[in-house]
């Protein structure tokens, strides 16, 4: 376990995950790096040695927290264990446990080679400049319409006419409650000896006005402050001062 590539990296404690990502683009990259450094034949990887080095490097680089590297470490250890199993007789075909790993390594190495080619192509292209980009001129806005001052004033008037009258504040009549109706009846009785039910309600009473007035009239009649009379059925009801009114 000497001369690890990680030895040139910053101190293990500081070798953060992100920094290390720049070194290797993944576990396959790290594995290929180890294989190349050790000048190993990819078709006959000494799996025990490579697995040990892989574990050591990811530990030193602080990569042993990254799931992808741990997964590869586990895979290497499993292959290592499978390699240790005694092989059955030579007549039985032996499936090399390293086969899938080798296939993936070669596939990845090919991708790396293409990636390097792309990088070279991109660098060559980047060193040749096209003409500076000139954005197309924006469409010219349409010319303003021509009109006379009279037409303009007419248009203004038209707009003003369409505007609704501004509502600054709307007074909402408070519905008359029984107390209010009582006060109003007593005030009327103070002025006149008699008045009709219609006079009491005014020109446009609301339902609440009618009900409050009715309750107030009945209550005052009960207390003897007024008396009610009706000459015939369905004729207007007349309200008179009651016997108790003068003393009230």
């Amino acid at each position, binding site marked *: 376990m000497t001369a690890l590539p990680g030895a040139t990296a910053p101190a293990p404690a500081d070798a953060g995950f992100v920094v290390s990502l720049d070194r290797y683009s993944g576990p*396959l990259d790290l594995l290929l790096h180890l294989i190349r450094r050790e000048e190993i034949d990819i078709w006959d990887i000494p799996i025990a040695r490579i697995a040990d080095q892989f574990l050591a490097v990811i530990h030193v680089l602080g990569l042993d927290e990254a799931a992808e590297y741990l997964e590869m470490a586990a895979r290497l250890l499993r292959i290592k264990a499978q390699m240790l199993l005694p092989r059955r007789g030579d007549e039985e075909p032996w499936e090399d446990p390293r086969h899938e790993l080798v*296939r993936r390594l070669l*596939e990845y190495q090919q991708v790396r080679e*293409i*990636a390097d080619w792309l*990088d070279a*192509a991109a660098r060559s292209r980047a060193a040749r*400049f*096209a003409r*500076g980009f000139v954005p197309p001129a924006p469409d010219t806005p349409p010319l303003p319409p021509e009109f006379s001052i009279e037409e303009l004033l007419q248009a203004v008037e038209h707009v003003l006419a369409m505007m609704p009258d501004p509502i600054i504040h709307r007074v909402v009549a408070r519905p008359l409650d029984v107390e209010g109706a009582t006060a109003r009846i007593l005030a009327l009785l103070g002025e006149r000896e008699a008045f009709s039910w219609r006079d009491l309600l005014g020109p446009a009473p609301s339902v609440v006005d009618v009900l409050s007035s009715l309750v107030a009239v009945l209550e005052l009649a009960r207390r003897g402050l007024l008396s009610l009379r009706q000459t015939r059925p369905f004729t207007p009801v007349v309200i008179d001062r009651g016997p108790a009114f003068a003393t009230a």
Partner: protein
Amino acid sequence: MDQRSRLLEAALFAAPRPLALDELSVLDPEATDADWLGAVQELREHYDNEGHGVELVEIAGGYQVLTRQAFAEAIERAAFAARPVRLSTAALEVLAIIAYRQPTGRAEIEEIRGVSSAGVLRLLQERGLIEVTGRSEGLGRPLLYATTPQFLEYLGLGDLADLPRSDELSIALTPPPAAGD
């Protein structure tokens, strides 16, 4: 140079992007594709042989006039133009896989790279080098990615056929050597 080659030069000078052959035909309806190819050839040779600081290149399915590589450093130092930011190794790996297997999904890319690639895919999409072209019929109907015309422009390629063929790569997926080791 004849009149058509000079017209071609003027058009390439004026255009902000590579011009394809069928776009050139709009310039002069009399001229055939062969005429334009002749003009391209003449202009290219003119630039190459008469000592010009620019060259005519075939890029992203069209033609474009670019400065010669030799002057890149001086131009950049003077801040007349800047090179685009280089892509990371991870981004180039993903780009390589998509370029050769397009359309392809994230799962296949991650299977080959052995590492999560969602962030890199997003970055490449933002730079306009790849685009979503559809969804796979597979489980979860994953998105499928393919390269864009900007990919060819970024690399200075005429078309995808300009990528190295697998037999030109040193590591082709060949079967292991015959038994005996």
